[in-house]
């Protein structure tokens, strides 16, 4: 039987220059999850579906997920393992088809059970990575995550005809991570997926706080990806609507999504992950998600104008990637060694396996910069602007830059609550 594949649908979009919009959506009740997917499918936009898993499943606490299901207590996502294969297959029946594939998004540092479950349910696409689903997200050692993601890749490759795996490496901590490191990490994870048997991959970048820098980063990503993975087919770029503190106003949220559509279109990305207007306060309903998707779908995008990508972000990313790949032929081993040596080092990440010596800051115009390189091999490559360790108020201001800017533009300074900083 030929199953509809996520990779096939997205490749068709990439060839025709179409931008696919996709929600982050997960409900614990299968009926709600089905309704949400059907609403996504029916939305007036080029959509694919998402099943976002709950936090218990992500940390492999399957018994807590099962207890919540038994008690009818709602979770923050869909507990794919607690529900079991027949329930999920029934939930997807008539939803999944060649025009509407569904991806599972989660956040599991150890993903074998999740991957086995999604494959058993007839799905062939997920998101993750040994670094991006580990370091920002918990206590699992990087070595354990690398081994687990190797097995997860093999499982996908062995059991699906044309599986797809998206690297979350373009997000790391959601905000304040300099783009050179994001680009290097997402390409390294894509190479890791390929080395472990999954051919069709996507590389990501989260919209940050300065559009010029975001465009440089996406051009750099395209250039580095083409050099290392060869030209498409076989990969595409995905943009995440801003992943940090989201605007509180509906108008501010819509403006962020509009700018994300512009960014993805100008950079020639194939997919955009969209956020809803209630992102700042709670998990959105299906209807709120559909509103956001239709809003994104209605934005008239500027024409694609990909730059050649030979820029400062590219030079940083290439230095980090080459220094990492020099450490070992096996990319998983190279990643473990690079983090141990501080050759890769994610600012503000508190994980034990992250050196924590590199620091970053954000300029008033939203540009993210290195304030301390730690052991990153970027001396002479990166522009470093030393800063003192931020106070809590300064950190909150930096984290709130995008929220404040969009809420202020939407409502004026008083209603945007500019004076809430303690």
């Amino acid at each position, binding site marked *: 039987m030929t199953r509809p594949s996520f990779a096939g649908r997205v490749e068709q979009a990439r060839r025709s220059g179409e931008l696919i919009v996709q929600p982050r959506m997960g409900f614990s009740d299968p009926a709600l999850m089905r309704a949400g997917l059907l609403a996504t499918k029916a939305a007036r936009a080029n959509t694919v579906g998402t099943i976002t898993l709950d*936090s*218990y499943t*992500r*940390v492999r*606490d399957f018994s*807590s997920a099962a207890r*919540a299901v038994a008690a009818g*207590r*709602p*979770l*923050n996502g869909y507990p794919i393992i607690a529900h079991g294969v027949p329930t999920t297959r029934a939930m997807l029946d008539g939803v999944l088809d060649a025009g509407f594939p569904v991806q599972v998004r989660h*956040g599991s540092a150890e993903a074998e059970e999740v991957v086995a479950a999604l494959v058993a349910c007839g799905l062939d696409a997920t998101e993750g990575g040994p670094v991006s689903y580990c370091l*920002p*997200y*918990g*206590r699992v050692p990087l070595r354990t995550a690398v081994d687990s993601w190797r097995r997860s890749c093999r499982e996908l490759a062995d059991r699906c005809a044309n599986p797809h795996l998206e690297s979350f490496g373009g997000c790391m*901590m*959601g*905000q304040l991570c300099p783009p050179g490191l994001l680009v290097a990490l997402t390409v390294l994870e894509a190479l890791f997926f390929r080395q472990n048997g999954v051919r069709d991959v996507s590389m990501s970048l989260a919209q940050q706080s300065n559009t010029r820098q975001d465009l440089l980063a996406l051009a750099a990503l395209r250039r580095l990806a083409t050099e290392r993975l060869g030209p498409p087919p076989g990969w595409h770029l995905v943009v995440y609507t801003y992943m940090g503190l989201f605007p509180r106003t509906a108008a501010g949220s819509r403006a962020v999504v509009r700018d994300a559509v512009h960014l993805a279109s100008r950079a020639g990305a194939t997919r955009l992950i969209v956020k809803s207007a209630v992102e700042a*306060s*709670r*998990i959105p309903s299906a209807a709120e998600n559909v509103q956001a998707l239709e809003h994104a779908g209605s934005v008239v995008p500027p024409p694609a104008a990909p730059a050649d990508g030979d820029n400062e972000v590219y030079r940083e990313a290439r230095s980090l990637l080459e220094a990492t790949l020099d450490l070992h032929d096996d990319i998983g081993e190279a990643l473990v060694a690079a983090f141990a040596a501080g050759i890769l080092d994610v600012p*503000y*990440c*508190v*994980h*034990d396996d992250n050196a*924590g010596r590199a620091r970053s800051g954000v300029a008033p115009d939203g540009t993210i910069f290195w304030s301390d390189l730690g052991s990153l091999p970027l001396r002479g490559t990166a522009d470093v602007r030393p800063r003192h360790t*931020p*106070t*809590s108020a300064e*950190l*909150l201001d930096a*984290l709130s830059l995008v929220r404040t800017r969009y809420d202020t533009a939407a409502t004026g300074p008083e209603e945007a609550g500019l004076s*809430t900083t*303690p």
Partner: protein
Amino acid sequence: MLTPLHNGWFRQPEARHVLLTTVASDAHTWNLVYLELLLVELGREVTNLGPCVPVSTVVESCRRRPPALLVVSTVNGHGAADGLELVRSLYRDPATRAVPAVIGGKLGIGGAAGECRRDLLAAGYRAVYEDTDPETPYEFLARALDTAAGPAGHVRDSA
């Protein structure tokens, strides 16, 4: 163990020691990074346990070195349920029954949840903070720290 980002020198380290944690299923860390800076600025010595902390790790940390205050910060929407389990385990153990605890963040998946606040207080938290509360985190924590040494129930709930 995760290493604290900051260490200070204090004359009475135990009285100033604050244990900062989140619940077992919560992977968010910006809230923890921010609160650690804030608690240090409030003159405290902070142990930051990082994300996805098992209940047993929190209880063991409190046993080994009883803090002046346990601060539980959670934003993934499971705090209402996981926060209950955490505080019940903490107060079931005689060695940690006296540790004053507060919890805050985004506690339920549907936004500000009034009934979960009541349950959390009934289970033993001295105070509960929802990020929609009018008070700032700084004001809430300053108040919680000031009164943590008092008898149970001394800290007013902020709502």
